[in-house]
């Protein structure tokens, strides 16, 4: 473990991610979020925290449908993410992106993507830019096991290996692409072999063990920085449905019970208690702090004003560049009122 990241740091980030997901899930049920979709990453905290904390400032990354955890692990502001999910102008994307398009470029986050696999090739280009600019940064694509069956992943893996780019492909394998379990979607579950076939290193790690994820990530990121890209499979279990309302008719309660026994937060907390690094009071305080932080984020999001309708046409093109008129402006041009009409 590195000098700057302790197991307690990992635990704290995981507890914060869980608290965020629980808070945003409650906000969703109360009708406080925009839209009818919300994808929670409960059960995947070990992957997000373990990998996210191993990255360096300046490293870039793209995320996917279930990217709240990685956003927080890389230093994202829960207030701005909560406001974004609530569709408020105070959100990190001014209420245009929401959960599935969360982004904060100041953190190197090049965006969450709602097209399965859509953000994967971006890290190839970002790594090309890093090499071109001599920044020494790595670019990491986070995606789910659903994207393992998308063609663009393999185009990207080939390019990264061919050009020896500082790239890591990080597959958060939560076992389900929406309602389809990975063994019903993939003929071969040996993802490491897929990596090797493309000339990349392939590593699978049990992501219920955040410490193991951190150590693996640290190693593959160092290798990637030297031009040896990798595919890392972060094996975990999606505790709840695909979206918040999904009642999971495609899997059994027994399977869920067993999957939820692989709780990354409980696993690290239990281990640290066993090692006398953590006591119950500290853990309770950590959870209370996280809950307070996320309650504050919810309050911030609820209090934030809705976006200004006049801003609808902003940010389609760069400011001060020509843009098509609004429908109203066009109507005013075609059907002027009063005597202006010829």
């Amino acid at each position, binding site marked *: 473990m590195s000098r700057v990241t302790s197991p307690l740091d990992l635990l704290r980030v995981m507890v914060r991610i869980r608290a965020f997901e629980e808070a945003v899930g409650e906000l969703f049920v109360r009708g406080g979020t925009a839209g009818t979709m919300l994808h929670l990453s409960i059960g995947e905290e070990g992957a997000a925290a373990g990998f996210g904390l191993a990255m360096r400032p300046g490293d*870039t990354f*793209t995320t996917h449908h279930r990217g709240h955890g990685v956003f927080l692990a890389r230093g994202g502001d829960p207030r701005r993410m909560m406001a974004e999910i609530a569709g408020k102008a105070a*959100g*990190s*994307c*001014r*209420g*245009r*992106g929401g959960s599935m*398009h969360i*982004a*904060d*470029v100041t953190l190197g986050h*090049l*965006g969450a*993507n709602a*097209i399965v696999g*859509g*953000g*994967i*090739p*971006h*890290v*190839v*280009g*970002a*790594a*090309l*830019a*890093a090499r*071109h*600019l001599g920044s020494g940064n790595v*670019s990491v694509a986070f995606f789910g096991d659903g994207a393992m069956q998308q*063609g*663009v992943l393999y*185009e*990207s893996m*080939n*390019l990264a290996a*061919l*050009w020896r780019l500082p790239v890591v492909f990080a597959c958060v394998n939560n076992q389900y692409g929406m309602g389809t379990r990975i063994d019903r979607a993939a003929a071969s579950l040996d993802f490491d072999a897929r990596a090797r076939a493309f000339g990349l290193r392939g590593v699978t790690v049990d992501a219920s063990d955040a410490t193991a994820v951190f150590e693996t990530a640290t190693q593959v990121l160092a290798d990637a920085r030297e031009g040896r890209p990798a595919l890392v499979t972060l094996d975990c279990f999606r505790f709840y449905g695909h979206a918040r309302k999904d009642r999971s008719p495609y899997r059994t309660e027994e399977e869920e019970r067993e999957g939820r026994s692989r709780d990354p937060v409980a696993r690290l907390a239990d281990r640290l208690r066993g090692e006398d690094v953590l006591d119950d009071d500290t853990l309770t305080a950590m959870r209370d702090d996280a809950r307070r932080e996320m309650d504050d984020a919810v309050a911030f999001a609820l209090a934030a004003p809705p976006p200004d309708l006049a801003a609808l046409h*902003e*940010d*389609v*093109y*760069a*400011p001060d*560049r*020509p*843009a*098509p008129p609004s429908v109203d402006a066009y109507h005013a*041009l*075609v059907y002027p009122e009063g005597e202006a009409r*010829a």
Partner: protein
Amino acid sequence: MTTAVDTTTYRDALREALREGLRRDPHVVILGEEVGRYGGAYGVTSGLLDEFGEDRVLDTPISEAGIVGAAVGAALAGLRPVVELMYVDFAALAMDQIVNQAAKARSMFGGQTGVPLVLRTQGGTGRSAGAQHSQSLEAWFLHTPGLRLYVPATVTDAHHLLLAALREPDPVVFVEHKALYTTRSDLGAHAPPPGVSVRRREGRDVTVVTYSRMLHRCLDAAQALAARGVEADVIDLRTLCPLDLEPVVASARRTGRVLIVTEDTLTGGVSAELAARVTELAFDWLEEPPMRLAGEDVPIPVAPALEEASVPTPLRIERAALRLLGRRA
């Protein structure tokens, strides 16, 4: 002393713009299939690899989604990539990256970032290249907010619009025409910016609106029309986004008759949008509904005669104009 004329080809004009872009901005990189050693399928990037090296001019595997996606990522991370799609038909393989990624990143992320990339490609008929190498698909891009769409017809525009594209903060789909690469003219020192339509011929009788290769066919038709006493006002749109219809409306006010000529298909094509706009903006001055002469609603056949029959020709443009004027062909 004689002045050299027709010194530059459309292809050379494009190459010189790329060379200038590579020289003036170290963040410009070119990537695409066969852009390096081969010099580009149509020779546009010939010689650039030798001059600028493999870090600036990157040959890629045949992976359209991957390379356009990589260009999006490179643009998000600080470069100014020029990605070449060998044929616009291949955009179908990269549509997610063009439409869902490049076009939307600025908006989805609330203006935090833009995607300053130029997607160079070429389309159109003229080489019996068949149904998967001959289409005019600009309507796909015109339909997508967030993209720019440049469609140069002339040598000077090929050069200056590409240089302008290399300064745009947003993604530009730059559609060249495969039948224009060997056309020649003098390379003008300047050209109007994108979003300024240009009248290429003055006439009082009928307004002809077009772009890309069809400009030349419209000018040929205008010459034939002049011999019959009909003077066509020919306007080259140059860019479809931004779109400048002011000269078209001004011309329609004088002529009352507008003929729109495009190579893309009639149904749901660019001509439909142009006809709607012209109708809305010049309704009170029109003597007839705007007439659209566009590509036939068929996959482009290989047989040269069939291929030619599938798109507007100078003769068909001439006949269409006469019909619009209520005269016998």
